[in-house]
């Protein structure tokens, strides 16, 4: 489903239907997912839509820019060591129309269950989108409409053994890549102590030939908001 599509276009996979129809002045967009139906009329010279995975932080509402991935089992890392692991993360799907220079998102939806959580304490903590992932040591192959794969490079700079149960990321640094089989991101987690680490995303694809997704979170404010997430409420 991902990629650029000229109207008329139809994608159907139970219970999801996405379609466009060409009109004189643009396109009619239609999307159905369970009981949720969206119809939009778009006035545009360009009759293309772009469908790609986006940061999983927009549905049911844009409440936070942080994503917390909890591992299904803790990972224990020896001092001064590094390890590459694979996690999955939830996907949201963005539908964009192309103007002269800009893209406009006309629909955002997800096929996975949304859940939020609090990272840290009530006073200084952060509300995060929550996802529980299996911990993989080799690249998994989840359904690219539901889950993406995060290749996470862990560095333990601490002098002691560290147990990692979760990782929190900032959406302003998310860079996602996709092809027909996989949606992916690469990230880093630098651990400096039992309670503290810094995470960030890398801007390279997991495989060669993957296409970069259009993003919803504005990269122009990234330098102000910061692309890193400093985890101080435990790892």
């Amino acid at each position, binding site marked *: 489903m991902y990629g650029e599509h000229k109207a008329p276009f139809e994608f159907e996979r139970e219970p999801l239907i996405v379609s466009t129809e060409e009109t004189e002045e643009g396109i009619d967009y239609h999307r159905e997912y369970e009981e949720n139906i969206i119809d939009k009329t778009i006035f545009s010279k360009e009759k293309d839509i772009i469908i790609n995975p986006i940061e999983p932080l927009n549905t*049911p*509402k844009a*409440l936070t820019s942080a994503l917390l991935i909890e591992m299904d089992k803790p990972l224990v890392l020896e001092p001064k060591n590094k390890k590459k692991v694979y996690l999955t993360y939830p996907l949201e799907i963005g539908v964009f129309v192309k103007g002269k220079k800009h893209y406009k998102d006309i629909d955002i939806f997800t096929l996975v*269950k*949304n*859940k*939020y*959580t*609090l*990272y840290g304490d*009530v*006073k200084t*903590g*952060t*509300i995060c989108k*929550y996802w529980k992932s299996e911990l993989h040591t080799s690249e998994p192959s989840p359904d690219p409409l539901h889950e993406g794969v995060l290749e996470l490079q862990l560095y333990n700079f601490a002098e002691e053994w560290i147990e990692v149960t979760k990782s929190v990321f900032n959406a302003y640094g998310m860079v996602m890549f996709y092809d027909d089989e996989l949606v992916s991101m690469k990230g880093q987690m630098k651990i400096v102590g039992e309670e503290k680490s810094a995470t960030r995303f890398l801007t390279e694809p997991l495989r060669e030939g993957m296409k970069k997704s259009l993003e919803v979170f*504005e990269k122009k*404010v990234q330098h*102000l*908001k910061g692309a890193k997430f400093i985890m101080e409420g435990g790892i």
Partner: protein
Amino acid sequence: MWNRIIFQNITVSDVILSFIIILVAVLIGKALTLSMKKRFKDKISKDRLNTMSRTVYYIILLAGFMTVLPILDINLSGLMVAGGIMAIVIGFASQSIVSNLISGIFLTFERPLRVDDVVSIGGQDGTLGIVEDIRIISTSLRTFEGVYVRIPNEKVFTSNITNFLENVARRFEYNVGIRYQDDADKAAEIIKELIEDHPLALKNPPPQIFVEDLGSSAVNLKVRVWGPSTDWFQIRIELLWKIKKELEENDIKIPFNQQEVWFMNELEKEK
């Protein structure tokens, strides 16, 4: 005509020049504040941006006035003597304004509330609403009925302020009564699943469901749920009705108040 003296050494051209300088200062101030608001609206919080843009505006306006004073031949040292006397007079006459002003400055530093926060000012029976603006003399709220309320800063500063958005998450709770013949464990499990299914009910801190009380008519379950401070009320409304419906679908009923009456003597059968 331009050199015609109006008052002492002040000519028409001096007055026009002063007017133009003030006008330019106002225009520059307005343009700069508008540009600041546009440029930084996504990057700085609304109240900080308001304070910054107002400060810039008043500094430019002050600079304009300071430029105009020598043109109009106004001597600042003379003004200071007169100003000292005036300050005493004005000080007595405008005590409340000064106290509101100072309270406003302290509120800016202490920051117990910010623009867009949901607050209650003045304790339990106080004013509840969304902060619209924090000005130098007063603070304005928009109540949930859509009414505009202006509160002098002195009152805000000396009152109890409850800020519902100061912390990122908050807890709310329900009391759910079920019949004595119903299975409380099953009821708790159903409620737990409903909370788990609600996207905005937080995973952590985890919800709590437990039997709190064996009441006269019902077994009372306490349900505690954490939600984001911005959305807890929506979760509270949505979950309560879902709990009621789901319990009833599983034949767990919420009982009416009931009382068993025992007669000491058996009643005679009516013939």
